[in-house]
């Protein structure tokens, strides 16, 4: 008789848990069936491929709660086990209840899952392995939070444990902000502690690894284009990394391999790092498939879910021909860009931050990095201004960094406009710039200019000043209403410049996914 394996799906599509997890569930089911076993899927989302009646051997259209799942397990008894690592947080959250009920979890165990999500256990593990993470601690009161913040220094990254998609995650710069946050955050999750970490303003890297418990394979390292502070689901990312030193890569691989082994990961694991210079610090570990798995599979040519599922079913990576460590990098770059639905949601600020806001993503593939950037941005639906006016309104702390970006836009023939502070700074650095009135200053102000279609691009960074920010939100909302691209991170703006320059220099070709893998 065939072995029966149950795969838990990921439920409804929401921000933070999208179609990627359905992709992973489907591939897991296919790999199980290919290995000659019977795959049973449980899911409740009618929009998906996983709930197509010929995807699995059996489909249960049921809620994903412990009671509903256990009833099915009882009905299907005897089963080989349940796979929980492909259905996002929905499936992972059921691991503990199923394990307690005596159900076998295939792949990384419920204990491994708990280990990654329990702050204290996880910190102890990193200390034991001598792997750095940003300084910080878990706290349960506002007073304790202030003490920790004073020790490690501001700014701090604060967030509740057990959250998805960075919900309620914030960067705080002062004690007041921290205390405010603690009052608000405790309401979010009354029992779970709050994490207060040093905020490292560096380059973020992300890896997905596959482990069979003995060997750990890293199909690739992805580099985020926006620096830390923007949620990984909302940042653009490039593979292979463009600005990462060999030494950093080696460290990332070394840390990932050792964490996978210590945590006894079998299957997939996602790790995010933030770099302070060449030194990567671990900021998050998820012992499950992540939203980057589908696109990383496509651009590295490694069918990651299939390989991971075979590990889960007991095969060794070595027997499948995969070495330990980082898989050789592909030559052609691929850029992932987030896609937002702000036009549908009145009252939501379109500024990027630690809370995820995007609903989807696109991939740009090309033979050059700027080409891939351009395709990702065009694919994401940004109306890239080929000529016209770029409007700057940036926080004081960002003016110096905005200057070279403004200079390049000017050199490419764009007209510059800016609000008084930014304009004065640019002008004092010999840039020709038109000063535009703020909302309160004139009828002809930056918002009316955006509305009347005179602005092709807005670069607006967030100010810590609440009064300025009120205006910032109105500016950003106007860009949504007029479908004018609005960059709230100077990193995205710099990437856009690269893309526009490439666009000005020539056109881009097309190739199939396979051709990008084989064309050198």
């Amino acid at each position, binding site marked *: 008789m065939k072995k029966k394996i149950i795969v838990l799906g990921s439920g409804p599509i*929401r921000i933070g848990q999208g179609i990627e997890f359905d992709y992973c569930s489907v591939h897991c089911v296919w790999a199980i069936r290919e290995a000659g076993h019977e795959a049973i899927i449980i899911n409740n989302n009618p929009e998906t491929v996983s709930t197509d009646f010929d995807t699995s051997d059996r489909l249960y259209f049921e809620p994903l709660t412990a009671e509903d799942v256990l009833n099915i397990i009882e009905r299907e008894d005897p089963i080989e086990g349940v796979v929980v690592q492909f259905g996002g947080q929905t499936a992972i959250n059921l691991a503990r209840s199923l394990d307690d009920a005596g159900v076998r979890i295939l792949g990384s165990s419920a204990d491994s899952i708990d280990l990654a999500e329990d702050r204290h256990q996880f910190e102890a593990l990193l200390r034991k392995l001598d792997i750095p993470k940003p300084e910080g601690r878990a706290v349960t009161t506002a007073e304790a939070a202030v003490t920790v913040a004073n020790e490690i220094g501001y700014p701090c990254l604060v967030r509740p444990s057990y959250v998805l998609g960075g919900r309620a995650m914030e960067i705080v710069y002062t004690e007041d902000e921290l205390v405010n946050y603690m009052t608000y955050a405790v309401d979010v999750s009354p029992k779970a502690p709050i994490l207060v970490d040093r905020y490292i303003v560096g380059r973020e890297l992300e890896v997905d690894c596959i482990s069979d418990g003995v060997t750990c394979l890293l199909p690739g390292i992805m580099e985020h284009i926006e620096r830390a502070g923007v949620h990984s689901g909302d940042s653009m990312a490039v593979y292979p990394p463009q600005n990462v030193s060999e030494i950093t890569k080696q460290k990332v691989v070394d840390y990932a391999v050792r964490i996978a082994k210590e945590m006894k990961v079998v299957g997939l694991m996602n790790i995010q790092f933030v770099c302070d210079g060449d030194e990567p610090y671990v900021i998050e570990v998820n012992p499950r498939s992540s939203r980057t798995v589908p696109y990383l599979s496509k651009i590295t040519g490694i069918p990651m879910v299939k390989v991971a599922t075979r590990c889960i079913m007991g095969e060794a990576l070595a027997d499948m021909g995969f070495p330990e460590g980082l898989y050789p990098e592909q030559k052609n770059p691929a850029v992932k860009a987030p896609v937002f639905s702000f036009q549908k949601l009145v009252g939501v600020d379109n500024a990027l931050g630690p809370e995820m806001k995007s609903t989807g993503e696109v991939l740009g593939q090309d033979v050059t990095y700027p080409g891939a950037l351009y395709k990702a941005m065009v694919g994401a639906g940004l109306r890239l201004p080929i000529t016209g006016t770029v409007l700057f309104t940036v926080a004081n702390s960002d003016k110096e960094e905005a200057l070279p970006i403004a200079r390049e836009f000017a050199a490419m023939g764009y007209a510059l406009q800016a609000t008084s502070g930014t304009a004065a700074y640019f002008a004092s650095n010999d840039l020709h710039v038109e000063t535009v009135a703020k909302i309160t200053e004139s009828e002809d102000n930056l918002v009316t200019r955006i509305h009347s279609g005179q602005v092709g691009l807005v670069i607006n960074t967030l100010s810590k000043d609440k009064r300025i920010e009120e205006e910032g939100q109105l500016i950003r909302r106007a860009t949504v209403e007029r479908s004018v691209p609005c960059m709230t991170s100077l990193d995205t703006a710099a990437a856009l410049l690269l893309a526009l320059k490439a666009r000005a220099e020539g056109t881009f070709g097309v190739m199939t996914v396979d051709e990008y893998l084989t064309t050198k």
Partner: protein
Amino acid sequence: MPRRLDLKKVMVIGSGPIVIGQAAEFDYAGAQACRALREEGISVVLVNSNPATIMTDVEMADRVYIEPLTPEFLEQIIARERPQGLVPTLGGQTGLNLASKLSELGILEKYDVELLGTPLSTIQKAEDREQFRALMREIGEPVPESWIIDSDATLAELSVQDNLPWPLIVRPAYTLGGSGGGIAYTIPELLEIGGRGLRLSPVSQVMIERCLVGWKEIEYEVMRDANDTCITICNMENFDPMGVHTGDSIVVAPSQTLSDKEYQMLRTASLKIIRALGIEGGCNVQLALDPDTYAYYIIEVNPRVSRSSALASKATGYPIARVAAKIAIGLHLDEIENKVTGRTLACFEPALDYCVVKIPRWPFDKFKSADRRITTQMKATGEVMALDRSFESGLMKALRSLEIGVLGLGYRHAAAWSDEHLDHLITVATDERIFAIAEAMRRGRSIDTIHAASYIDEWFLKKIKNLVDMELWLTGVNDGFVQRLAEAKHLGFPDRVIAALAGVRLDDVVLARKGMGIKPSYKIVDTCAAEFEAQTPYFYSSQDTEDELLRD
């Protein structure tokens, strides 16, 4: 007619990134279509910019392109691949708009690419309000009074016209999920919503229409082939009356509150429309029905696979996208096998012996500052579906599938709502309305009162009342819960909710339940209400005696 043998290579355009109004349903449809085409020996060229999709897997198509979905890039792919045909109706509004654009720019003609399935002229007839209204008038199907507005000046002119049928609904043309629309009760509101709609519409056009608030909203999924054979896949009824986007409405299938006469009347209208339009493939017809008379209006027609067709496919077991792809390459409904039964054909109309409940999943848990009102502009990012033998238990299953911290109609904020706020939540639809209805019933509001404020059909409200009555009975009964445990399970109450209400431990409920031998049986979704033997492996649970899951 067998499939067209002249077609060797066909291009399929996906729907691009997931945005509100266009989610995973097009990956499902596209993947199914790719398989259906390849089954017939056709080589498939697939283009989509979204890498997180099954359809962009190298196994799904012969040539897979992850490139931006713009006419420039698509032209390059067409020039390179030289497909003979293009199926425009599988990639949502994005795919459809691109196909129209490629045709307009002469690219299809230049490379001799034929649009397969529903002709472009038909798509335009269904999508262009004026053409659509003219056609409806021609075939005698009623459409609500409406005006096409293309500038702020004409908007201002209209707003002061006498005898306007207030309130008016504003729908911008060619936008996803009706973006930028809304209901205007006054002249200033009309100017505001209409102005925003004009800016958001890519063709700067809005339609202003008689608002049918309070009418029932009913949908029919229908299919037609080139031989003019037409069938109904299923009909669906919106729990929320007209005024709420169907993507933001709780939906049941099949309809639960229609008389046979109403059902047949709307079915006949839907079939008449798909014939008049000449659609070859699937089509979604949305209708408004006056609950008190037999009056109805045709609201909208989607001449393509859609979110509703994905829901209808899962609700019935009938693979609409697969069949639509087969029709596009020349097959007729009576030549396509129904894979679920393995013995009936695709021309066989599905029958349902269960109730399907869909609830949207909104992003308001993440976006606390967002306007939570649900109107004609869709806000949900996803949805859940549940099947069961009754509406009550289907609703309970769907609620606990949402993962918003609820296991039923209990809602942690509800007790703190003031009476005034509660009234507001029932009158003005938000994601919280279903919980507000239950809370109002707990506070003794009558079904009539709630109906008068929300226009939600009394049948649905009575069913919710059954759940609330059980909830109230269970509250604080302690060990007494066992008396009505079977009944509570039948209504769809999870063990955890029963334990919490009764004031006992979860284990007490589980043990009692097991001791009494109460466990779900599993029913099959066979598309034919057991009229034929089914081979489908598609199941749902029910607290019913007969188990239809055969042991190996």
